[in-house]
């Protein structure tokens, strides 16, 4: 039993919040933020898991999170470029 860990609960709540945001928010930038909140919840869960070893933190989940952060930021940066392009396309349509 991992027991009652507030950070594990926070991780789960972050995933739920992000999911709700993804469904209810119409603005693409906010939807990107929502997905990132989900991701950060998952990362937090992994880091909580890494603390279970007796001889120091488990480096495997840490490496997973680092990889995950880089992937999430790369994808989000690309997503932001798409958000800007979409806004510009919409402006040109309005003119």
């Amino acid at each position, binding site marked *: 039993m991992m027991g009652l860990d507030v950070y594990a609960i926070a991780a789960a709540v*972050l995933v739920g919040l992000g999911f*709700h945001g993804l469904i209810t928010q119409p603005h693409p*930038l906010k939807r990107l933020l929502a997905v990132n909140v989900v991701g950060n919840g998952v990362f937090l869960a992994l880091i909580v898991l890494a603390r279970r070893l007796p001889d120091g933190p488990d480096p495997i989940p*840490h490496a997973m999170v680092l990889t995950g952060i*880089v992937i999430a930021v790369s994808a989000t940066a690309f997503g932001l470029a798409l958000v800007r392009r979409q806004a510009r396309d919409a402006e040109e349509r309005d003119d």
Partner: protein
Amino acid sequence: MNLFDALTALLLVLLAWRCLIVPDLFRSIVLFVVFGLLLALTWARLDAPDLALAEAAIGAGVLGVLLLGTWRALGSPRRGETPSSSLPAGLRVLSAAGSAVLAGALAYGLHLLPGTGDGAGTLALETLPLPATGQPVTAVLLDFRSYDTLLETAVLLMAVVGTWLARSPLLDALSSEDATAHTPVMPVLMRLFAPVLLVTGAYLVWAGAYTPGGAFQGGAVLAAAGVLLALGRRLGTAPDAGWLLRLLLVLGVLVFIGAGLLLMPAQNAFMAYPERWAGLIMHLVEYTLAVSIALSLLLLFTGRPGLRGISG
């Protein structure tokens, strides 16, 4: 478990909730960056200093700059209040209920997990004296699971190419409309901080083998120096990348793949290095990766293939 942890966890949830719920886009972004910084603190608290650095530098830092820049570039009608949900109230309630179930199930699942883990992690800590790098996370990233790291740098390259194809360069949009460069503070900031960031970044890369830090954290700090120079109009964009820039962008991946493939016939495994050379190769990989990562992150910000220096 103490009050500090309980408050931090609560604050994380509150920040995320406000970030997703406030209608004003700017405040939403600021809240997200604060959320990222608190997350970095949390990870330092949870024995993950490497990740705290990465989250602060990449998650809150680079992503924060990109978010705020994008907000500026969106143009006035689109940057203000975001439309509230167009979903009917019933569906919103359904979504909230579904999210609550998801969160509850995940919390319960995490709670049920065994209190000790026996497996790859223990093995990694036991095997640690063997590889050339002393830092456990670096050993996993550059040795045990170096294949993941290699593939992840390819993700970065794809995001850069994708950003070019989106043809919405952020730096150009910013410099065409705003006045940051003309405020008297900017040049001072730049002269003061750009060298500091360069030195810090280089230190983080170098130190990564022995202490928290590494190619990603260091690369992100180096990229921040570049972003500062770009905002201060010392760096501009160009329509096409010269060969040197293209080479530096993929240098890390090339060295990584090259070392793996060239040594494969002798070692009988991809990315297995002879013991004498392992340290040298991993350092070479780490340094070249840092350069490529720094440039990639900078180009994700500028948004066009080329860079040019501006004298002034």
